[in-house]
C-alpha cells in the first residue's frame, strides 16, 4: 500500500510540475503548482512527517498560492500569443537540467541510510519539543525575518508620493 501510494504521489507530483513549467496561462501554472504541492504533502505523510504535511498545505495552498493568484489578477496578464520560449535558450536549459537530473539520480543510488537507524515520526509534539528547546533562537529569529519581510513588502508596494 505504502509503495503504491509513493508511486502515485510522486508521478502525479512530477506530472503537475511539468504542467507548471509548460502552462501557457499563469493561472493554469498556479493551479498545477497547488496540485504539485498537495501531492508533496502526501509524500510527507508517507514519510511520517505529519506536522510538515499540514504546514505544507496551510502555508503553500493557503497563503503562497493565494498571493500568487492575487498578483496575477492584480496585474491582469493576458495569455501571451507570442512564443514563450527562446529556441536556443530552451535547448541549452534542457541540456543543463537534463545533465543535472542524470547526475543527481546516479548519485542518489550510492547514498545509503545510516545502519540501524530507528525511523522517527514527525508529530507536532516531537517537532514542538525540538523547536522550543534546541532551536529556540532560530525560531525567534524567524519571527523577526517575517516582520522584516512584511515591512519590506509595504515599502516596495507603496505608491510614490511627491
Amino acid at each position, binding site marked *: 500500500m505504502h509503495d503504491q501510494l509513493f508511486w502515485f504521489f510522486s508521478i502525479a507530483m512530477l506530472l503537475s510540475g511539468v504542467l507548471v513549467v509548460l502552462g501557457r496561462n*499563469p493561472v493554469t501554472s498556479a493551479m498545477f503548482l497547488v496540485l504539485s504541492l498537495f501531492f508533496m504533502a502526501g509524500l510527507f505523510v508517507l*514519510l511520517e512527517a505529519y506536522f510538515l504535511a499540514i504546514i505544507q498545505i496551510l502555508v503553500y495552498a493557503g497563503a503562497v498560492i493565494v498571493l500568487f493568484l492575487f498578483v496575477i489578477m492584480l496585474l491582469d*496578464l493576458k495569455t501571451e500569443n507570442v512564443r514563450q520560449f527562446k529556441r536556443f535558450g530552451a535547448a541549452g536549459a534542457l541540456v543543463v537540467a537534463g545533465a543535472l537530473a542524470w547526475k543527481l539520480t546516479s548519485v542518489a543510488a550510492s547514498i545509503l*541510510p*545510516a545502519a540501524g537507524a530507528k525511523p522517527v515520526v514527525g508529530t507536532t509534539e516531537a517537532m514542538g519539543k525540538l523547536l522550543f528547546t534546541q532551536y529556540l533562537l532560530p525560531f525567534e529569529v524567524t519571527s523577526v525575518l517575517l516582520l522584516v519581510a512584511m515591512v519590506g*513588502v509595504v515599502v516596495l508596494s507603496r505608491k510614490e508620493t511627491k
Partner: protein
Amino acid sequence: MIPVTLEHYLIVSGLLFSLGLAGVMTRRNALVVFMSLELMLNASNLALVAFSRFNGNLHGQVFVFFIITVAAAEVAVGLAIIVALFRRRQTVQVDEITSMRL
C-alpha cells in the same frame, strides 16, 4: 515490486529540482519563473524530510520548517518586487527588462 527506499525519494527530489531549474531558465514570465523556483525549494524539502526519516533524526524536519517560513517571506517580497516592476514597465517578461536603470 521493489520496496521504496531513501534512494527513490532522492531520485524524485532530484527530478523535481531539475524540472524547476528548466522552468527558471526557459520561461520568460517572471511569475512562472517564481513558481518554478518554488518547485526547486520543495524538491530540497523532500530530500531533507526523506533523509530525516531514514536516518532516524528529526533535525532535518525542523530545517524544512524553517525553509518553508523563509520561502513564504521570499514569495511575499518577490511578488511585491514584480508588482513594483509592472507599475513602472507594464511588463513582467524578464527579457524585456534588461536595463538596470529605473
